[in-house]
């Protein structure tokens, strides 16, 4: 809570460097830095962000360190994570 604000974590999303706070989900950390698109849909190529925010809808899935279908709203960022959009 109080001291967690100092624990900055660096990671990349689609090759771009980002920072977040320890304990934050991938989606939260990315939204904090202004990201409004986590992936594009398979058929309509439409942008998607989070929807249910609690791991139910799978709308926010991303590839984390080459592991596919990870829910960005649940998975917490770890130092050095390489995250990319999935289809």
């Amino acid at each position, binding site marked *: *809570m109080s001291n*967690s604000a100092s624990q900055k974590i660096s990671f990349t999303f689609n090759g771009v460097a980002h920072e977040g*706070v320890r*304990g*934050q*989900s991938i*989606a*939260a*950390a990315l*939204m*904090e830095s202004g990201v*409004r*698109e986590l992936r594009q*849909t*398979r*058929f*309509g190529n*439409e*942008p*998607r*962000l*989070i*929807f*249910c*925010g*609690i*791991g*139910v*809808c*799978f*709308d926010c*899935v991303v590839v984390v360190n080459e592991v596919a*279908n990870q829910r960005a*709203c*649940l998975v*917490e960022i770890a130092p050095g994570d390489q995250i990319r959009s999935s289809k």
Partner: protein
Amino acid sequence: MIAIVGAGPAGLAAAMTAAQGGEEIVVIDSAPRPGGQYWRHLNQVEGYKSGRSEKYFEALRERKNVIHISGAQIWSAVPGENSITLNYLADGIESSITVQKIILATGAHDRAIPFTGWERPGVMTPGAAQALLKGHNVMAGQQILITGTGPFLLPVAVGLAAAGADVVGIVEAHSPLRWLMSPVALALNPQKALELLYYIRKIAKYKLKIRFNQAVVAFDGKSATIAKVSKDLTTKKIVSKVHCDVVAAGWGFSPDVTLGGILGCKQIVDLDGTVIFAVDNHQRSSQPNIWIAGEATGIGGADLALIEGRIAGLSALGLGISLRLRFQRYRLQKFARALQVSYPVGNGWQGWLRSESKVCRCEEVSLGEICSSVTELSANDARTSKLFTRAGMGMCQGRICSRNVSEIIGVQTQCQVTDQERIAYSNRPIAAPISLGALTDGIK
């Protein structure tokens, strides 16, 4: 050993109660930290009685007979002769635990209803906006519009406003006067009036604009279209457009009944069409040694969940339930019933959609495709339509859309959705996705 599935209010109350009886307790929860959707703790957020959780967290941490397995997704459950085995996935490894008794407290998620543009970035559930703030200290957007129905919209709006968000309005589909239909529930629950007063004061303090009998029926990415709606949610007329980058829309809650369904616990359909478990007055399910507490036995909020969790914990210890506890549950159940009466979700939302509007978000299936599966291909229930259109076959396994698809087919075929169909679409044979690799790698 007693396993408690879920570490929200119901699960934590059950754990604390059962632990006081000296039993070995294991609490299994999918989140990294306890609290469920109701208590999240990266930072404190303003809200009515938000500090109640500490004694439960302490019991979880300090009691020697309580083990907390966090970040564990139970994907299947297998009943044995005098035991139940729960198989779960944690940190990519599949494990299992065998116990004598289980208490299910699996909670609920926001019910979502489609509108034109609901798939755009920025549209989310109120639960998502609240989780971002409470759990991650992140504001969902610059200008947040809250819409849907039910009292949950108030704490979300107030929490966001108190944390500094620009909440551009609360758009509630129903009128508060509908509470007058439930005088007994109100009389039995004077404490709820205090809670309401608290939120009225906060709404005034943060100068939040609240509109009744209106709903967001479309979002174009920059502004939301607000319409006056009738009590079954049919659009009467478009009244305004509000500039915003987030629309948080919530229409009550859908309980998670998957695990109890796998274990064969009897399910029933609640007054408002929600599938819940049938339990007796000890919170016992239809299956031996399985108790169920909280939202999965009827949406009623955290106060009711805490009481039900305590009752389940006492009953699992073989103890009796005092009259006082029974009365507390009774009056909160009355209140829960009044919520259903005051905030119904009719089928008028189907008129908010265009033919090309998506209904199934995962498989990107539109209203038009679902309707043609009825008119062109003679689908007469949600299951048949799903086979034709893939609506409900995506990664969420229909958790978001299946109820809505079913209601659309009901309207198209002019048939009431049957209880059997509601129970069918609420259940799935595997509770969480698991890779074949994790199943076959032999690590256990």
